[in-house]
């Protein structure tokens, strides 16, 4: 009764006839071959030309960033791990490093390999009710509190939790401040100077709202090494 419901097969049109299995196989084969040609062409464009072009621009315009934001021991930027006249690169400004012992500001716990292993980035993947993680967190809290000589209840969350990447370069300002006394004592520096250094390294939220205030541990420790005792 309705005119709108014309069965599609009733309209003969170019290629519109009902398909047999045989003609379907032929059509599929044709489309697949066309697909292979298109894939190869686009692979050259998107898989070779595009990344190489971007690499070219990156290396030319932003060589430091494009090569990993590397720093030498005196804090200068280098574009190669081999370093330059200032010495070899000691790490990336963006990647956290392991620091232990009382003379360093400590980063967050890391689940990347044995800690800050860039070849094994990742988190602990332990869940919010996991008893193992609960025990670990409590253990870390006690340990950090003991090291830094503070009340366990004041230890900030980032000090007792592993980051997502295991390469988190930052700690919270609270955790940095907590470590000031220990580091100052270990290095024989006035607490006020170390505290001031920490405050210099506190970065606020981007545009006032994005992300969280933080302290880059490598930058802070680098600054520490250049500080006269």
């Amino acid at each position, binding site marked *: 009764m*309705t*005119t*709108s*419901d*014309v069965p599609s097969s009733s309209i003969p049109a170019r290629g*519109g006839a009902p398909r047999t299995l045989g003609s*379907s196989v032929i059509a599929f084969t044709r*489309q697949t*071959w*066309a*697909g292979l040609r*298109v*894939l190869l*062409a*686009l692979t050259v*464009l*998107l*898989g*070779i030309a*595009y*990344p190489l072009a*971007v690499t070219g621009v*990156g290396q030319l315009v*932003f060589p430091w*960033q*494009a090569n*990993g*934001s590397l720093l030498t021991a005196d804090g200068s930027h280098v574009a190669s*791990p081999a370093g330059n006249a200032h010495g070899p*690169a*000691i*790490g990336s400004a*963006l*990647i956290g*490093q392991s620091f232990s012992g009382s003379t360093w500001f400590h980063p967050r716990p890391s689940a990347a390999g044995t800690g800050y*292993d*860039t070849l*094994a*980035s*990742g*988190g602990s*993947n332990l*869940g*919010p*009710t*996991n008893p193992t*993680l609960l025990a670990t*967190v409590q253990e870390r809290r006690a340990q950090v509190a003991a090291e830094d000589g503070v009340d366990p209840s004041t*230890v900030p*969350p980032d000090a007792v939790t592993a*980051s*997502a990447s*295991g*390469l*988190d370069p930052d*700690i919270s300002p609270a955790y940095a401040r907590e470590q000031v006394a220990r580091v100052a004592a270990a290095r024989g520096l006035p607490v006020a100077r170390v505290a001031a250094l920490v405050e210099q390294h506190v970065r606020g939220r*981007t545009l006032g709202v*994005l*992300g969280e205030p933080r302290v880059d541990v490598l930058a802070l*420790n680098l600054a520490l090494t250049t500080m006269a005792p």
Partner: protein
Amino acid sequence: MSTPWIAVAQILVLVVALAAVHVPLGGYMARVFTSARHLRVERAGYRALRVDPDADQRWSTYLMSVLGFSMVSVLFLYGLERLQNHLPLSIGAPAMDPAGAWNTAVSFVTNTDWQWYSGETAAGHLLQMAGFAVQNFLSAAVGIAVVVALIRGLARSGADGRVGNFWSDLVRTVVRILLPLSVVVAVVLIAMGVIQNLSAHTELTTLAGGTQHVLGGPVASQEAIKEIGTNGGGFFNANSAHPFENPTPLSNLLEIVLLLAIPFSLPRTFGIMVGDRRQGWAIAGVMGTLWAGAVGLLTWAELAGPGVVPAAAGAAMEGKETRFGTAASALFAASTTSTSTGAVNSMHDSLTAAGGGVAIFNMQLGEISPGGTGSGLYGMLVLVIVAVFIAGLMVGRTPEYLGKKIGRREITLVALYVLATPAIVLTGTAVAIATHAGQAGILNPGSHGLSEVLYAFTSAANNNGSAFAGLTVSTPFYNTLLGLAMLLGRFVPMALVLALAGRFATQRTVPPSAGTLPTHRPLFAGLLIAVALVVVGLTYIPVLALGPIAEALS
């Protein structure tokens, strides 16, 4: 760590950025797909490749193009993975095993980007560039092509099932939309600190005297399309939590904007192409509402930090980066699971139980809020048809959408679509949870373990790709099964959508009358949200009750 006000402010900044992108990008994409002209470079390409970009394909031919193209893509990628140790720039990465190679090939071709491997050690630069990044472009383009075919089907009248030309849609999406955007974004990302080189990983001595590798690789070029194409496959294992993929809060915002940009702009493209922009607004509004709900819930959960571990730590900072904090991590997690991206800037396995539950439910909605590039919109349009069907009956007319009657055949295709993904998710999860091979991969005990498996199959079948990564999935069992889930979860719905496009294109458009149910008003949008939550959500309530809900209430 974060305060609610900061969380809200970040969300607002994001919304403003998206609003700024929506109109120009949506309009631009509509022009791309309605323009009769080919660019000179495109024309040359078609001629060289002997492809006819002007043949108006029937839906079945269009589908064969999609399937044929995807098949050779899987085979090509599989070959690259198996042979990568013989290829240049492999930086010592070994060949993948057959099950792993199958999983990864399917994963990238289906826009899932599920990763059982660690990019740092398992994938050489050439595989990343010429394999993964290429599929990041192409799988996104295929999704967009399919939704464009569906839109054409709705917009056309009596067109004998002809829905456009796949090759032209594919090439235009790549050449005119994805590639230009990616070039710009990649350079911006480099400026922010994302690396872009072809070096191998080099060892150096750290400040404290330890050793650490400086990572190399063409990361920025891949990171850009990873977000723009809602792919989510990280260059490195830590994905967007890795400082070399996502170095600053600003790059973090950029990445969230990018992964939401095309999915949130496509409704406008849709509105323009069907000649009624209000329809696009309604769809975008529904997507936005569902997304905002998920963001709100997830942010609340992460900021409040319920659960014994967050309580013990003082905040839900396990598995989160200091520079992002809880708010930006929650925002990213909600957005990436809403969009089938699956990139992560925090470890979802360590989200609070409620937060992880929201992430799972987000994906279970079928990736529609706003979903993946193309797939989000077609998934939403399928739900629109379910809503139209129920609402149409309730106003006493044979249901119709945009002048197309929803009859038996249309509703059959839609019903199969709605059925397909839950069937894959539930069956896969049940098989894994009932077998030793499946249970062996579980890291966390109890309810959370069930959530890990549920997350894996939900993510695979909905082509999201993020994970409760505690689950060890680098086994032949999971690689094979999840590969199957990704493949079926991608192409069964696609085939149904193209068949639906063909049906609509064949139908003649009925002009609207006062008796036609308006599908652009808040009332219908509200119904659509209810349909999404109830019809889709109800399926998963029992398993959610045993997983995240039980854990969250404990």
